[in-house]
């Protein structure tokens, strides 16, 4: 339960933006919020398996680049049509400028 994986450094992501992170055959999205906190979710939209990291971050919402499905990236909550299935989220911590995601 302490499988922390380094995803990137904190400088790799602008505030209110997102970055794709692939690890062990899976893809994730790592977010930096406008108030400078880091979050991580599964990388693919639950509607049509599109990479969310190509989408736009607005405040605490990530919007799918294809069909504008919206999720709260802090909680994973789906915010309405066309998405109805929540996103899985992962714990994140920043240590010495490195963004670490707990994957298990």
């Amino acid at each position: 339960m302490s499988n922390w994986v380094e995803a990137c450094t904190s400088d790799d992501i602008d505030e209110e933006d997102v970055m794709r992170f692939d690890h062990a055959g899976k893809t994730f999205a790592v977010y930096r919020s406008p108030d400078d906190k880091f979050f991580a979710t599964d990388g693919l939209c639950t509607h049509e398996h599109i990479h969310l990291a190509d989408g736009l971050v607005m405040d605490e919402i990530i919007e799918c680049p294809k069909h504008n499905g919206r999720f709260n990236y802090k909680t994973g909550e789906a915010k309405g049509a066309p998405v109805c299935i929540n996103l899985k989220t992962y714990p994140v911590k920043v240590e010495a400028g490195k963004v670490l995601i707990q994957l298990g």
Partner: protein
Amino acid sequence: MDSGMVIIGAGECGVRAAFALRENGYDGPVTLIGTEKHLPYERPPLSKEAMVSEDHPAPRTIAAESLFTEKNIDFVGNSTATSIDREEKRVTLEDGRKIPYARLLFATGAIPRPLPLAAGSKHCTTLRSFEDAVAIRARFQPGARIVIVGGGFIGLELAASARKRGATVTVIEAQSRIMMRGVPEEIARVIDTRHRDEGVTILCDTGIVSFADAADNVAITLSTGNVIVADLAIIGIGATPVAALAEASGLETGNGVVVNDWLQTSDPDIYAAGDCCIFPLAVYGGRRVRLEAWRNAQEQGELAARNMLGAQEPHQAVPWFWSDQYELGLQVAGLADEGVRTIRRDLGDGAFILFHLAADGRLVAASGIGPGNSVAKDIRLAEMLIARGARPDSGQLATADVKLKSLLAA
């Protein structure tokens, strides 16, 4: 309780409207009438994934059956509304059943525009339904000769899908280039080149003189005098709104069901939304348009639902379209023909965006193309700039290092 809400048309628009009625607190009867036997499904994959998926495709439903039950939406499939009594306020279905309404919504969509010359040919088809897609897919075999009439979104998506399945593809376009409507030439050229690289033959400025059926194929005589033999010809020359019932009911129609900016028809208790309606587009000063677009169908379905419940909200969204061909993703926000000059921003990896500016400097549209969804984020930001009537600096638009988000904050 009132006599209920009736929605004619169970595509993306009608389904969104039905659920939006519930999301907005309506608890009276909601009836959703669709002509197809399937539970309502998404149409965009029909020209793309459904054609190339390894497994036999299944309709991708918009909402699970359990959700219709949970929200108490009465979906009446495999059924056609045949008349509307506006005095008594009820809809009659083909089986004679009468459904009363307090408010009625037309979400009947659009159907492929027929090509009269091709009417008698059994080797010519169009794509609208899941059954159409399955039948076309079965013909996309290695070596099959596929001719696509019309170089628009559907035709070109089918061309890409047919090539992926190993068929030989010829696209015949009457105009001087593909995607004449809505897509700027600079972007159309990228897509044209990509198709030619895949071995697709694209014939522009080419009309069709005749179709002559043989047992297993059809000979198509072109305006150039050449004859092409096709195992299957797919006609993709645009769509016409399904508005006959609205017209027969005495509602104002033109190129679609005419609505005001609340999506209300000439009868205040009847609304129309999505591909079937012609409406004033607020972002361009009320220019009347009819859109054939997935997102517009959703947005207008939701808006119509709110207005059927009395919200009196005008439609204000910026049009948005996309197309996927091979690995390329095309997105357009706004209507490019509103612009008089363009600014290009290169994003790397061959991806670029054209910003279309009006004479007064307002950003009126943005079109982008690139691998995957590489242009999506900037097109979405451009859409927000368009919505607020922004006049961004040309130099900043051209410079990829200047984040569009920073222009939004300005």
